[in-house]
């Protein structure tokens, strides 16, 4: 048993390290213009992102991402509640919402460019609007699947409307809201990159596309690496937040599965 655990640990860490080492050495003398040596890529990574463009591009991109996502999250949950709790509102906007979420979010970027221009507002608006739908739809689903028993409890114990919304519906719908938020975060990340690639000369996406268009393969790889790392880290951070907010849910599900 113990041997197996050690073997798994060795394999689990060894293979990725081996892959990186293989990349390093196999690419070391690469003359292929599109697959430069890993060493060059890392060097450019350091030169580009850690100093030169950190503030002007990296922070800018991340700021847009989080601002857009935050707007989407708050608006999505709020409108989700309004929609779920007031049926006429739901009937009125349901078909529109479903139509709008059918549109690939990136396809909205050209429209926003034509309407609001190319500045930070456009990027944040695009991110916020595209990321809004998954959260909103998940919130509506979450609220509508809250058990009637819980709502009966809340009424019998005469909880106020505010208490019912904040202390019963919101936490009960939280697992589904978080699933929606996770999708929203992915969408926000994609639209962040797309909005920079389509209508901007600033940001990580714009820098990466520019590197590709001027055939600076090492710079492009550095951009891809940075975007990959950001995608990974943002996901990890979100996972930590989810673990904290939904510890009761994760715990109860683990228990249910073990049973």
């Amino acid at each position: 048993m113990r041997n197996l655990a050690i073997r798994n640990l060795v394999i689990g860490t060894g293979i990725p390290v081996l892959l990186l080492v293989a990349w390093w050495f196999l690419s070391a003398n690469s003359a292929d213009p599109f697959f430069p040596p890993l060493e060059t890529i890392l060097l450019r990574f350091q030169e580009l992102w850690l100093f030169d463009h950190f503030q002007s591009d990296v922070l800018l991109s991340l700021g847009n991402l989080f601002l857009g996502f935050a707007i989407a999250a708050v608006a999505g949950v709020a409108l989700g509640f309004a929609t779920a709790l007031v049926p006429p509102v739901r009937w009125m906007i349901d078909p529109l919402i479903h139509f709008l979420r059918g549109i690939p979010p990136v396809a909205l970027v050209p429209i926003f460019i034509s309407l609001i221009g190319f500045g930070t507002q456009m990027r944040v608006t695009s991110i916020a609007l595209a990321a809004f739908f998954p959260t909103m739809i998940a919130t509506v689903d979450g609220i509508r699947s809250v058990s009637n028993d819980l709502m009966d409890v809340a009424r019998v114990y005469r909880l106020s409307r505010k208490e019912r919304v904040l202390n019963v519906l919101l936490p009960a719908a939280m697992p589904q809201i978080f699933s929606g938020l996770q999708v929203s975060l992915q969408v926000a990340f994609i639209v962040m990159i797309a909005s920079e690639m389509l209508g901007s000369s600033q940001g990580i996406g714009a820098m990466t596309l520019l590197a590709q268009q001027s055939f600076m393969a090492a710079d492009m790889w550095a951009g891809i690496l940075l975007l990959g790392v950001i995608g990974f880290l943002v996901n990890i951070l979100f996972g930590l937040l989810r673990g904290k907010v939904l510890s009761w849910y994760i715990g109860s599900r683990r228990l249910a599965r073990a049973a």
Partner: protein
Amino acid sequence: MKVSIHPYALSAVGIAGALVIWQILSAANLAGNALPAATTVFATLASILGTGAFWSSLGATLGVALLALAVAAVAGVALGLLVGSFEPVRYATAAVLEFLKPVPPIVILPLAVLVLGPTAEMSFFLVVFGCLLPIVMQTVDGVQGADPVARDTARSYGMGEGEILARVVLPSAMPYIGTAMRVAAPAALVVTVVAGLLGGGPGLGQNIYQAQAAGDYASLYALVIVLGVLGLLFQAATRLAERRVLHWHESYREVVH
């Protein structure tokens, strides 16, 4: 009876209201010529629908999306079975899969365009990249979630490993794979459009880029409407397919989260 009419009436009111607001906003000329009137857009849509170029773009988009989805499904399930069935393989791939999972295909789009050019192959590659990992991960979860009792039962009846895989593990992983496909199918469409829009791959995405670059806003809106309808159809179709394939599995909704 009165109650059941209400929702539809209100839905109609909602759609009509949105169209009216659109028309008024465009008439008010708030955004210059960038917001064409709803009537103009629908007229443009009608004329676009009558051109052969539109249908061949649509065909290119659907062809790339569906072919790539099929390849990603077959390869993803196969890889998922492999990774899920053998512990060493699972540990060997865990780090790479976990790193790549949250990386959307748009990140590697510049590389794909650089190497493959603005081609259908580039779009195809990106869609496979985008759809493969979720399918692999869900299949692995499904294999892991297969009831050990069912496995032991099968083994006690003298089934071989391969037979167990095909008769026990794969069917019990089906709900997970179904979930993955329901997510992957609309994603395939989205990635195809992104590859066209940002990478110049053939299809509706490229048409949108050209409409924007040429300042042909009526076509731009018309194409986005087409994409919205297409997205709805994709979602509906995958839901229907999932229900058909998984009708035997009462609890398939349970694994959605």
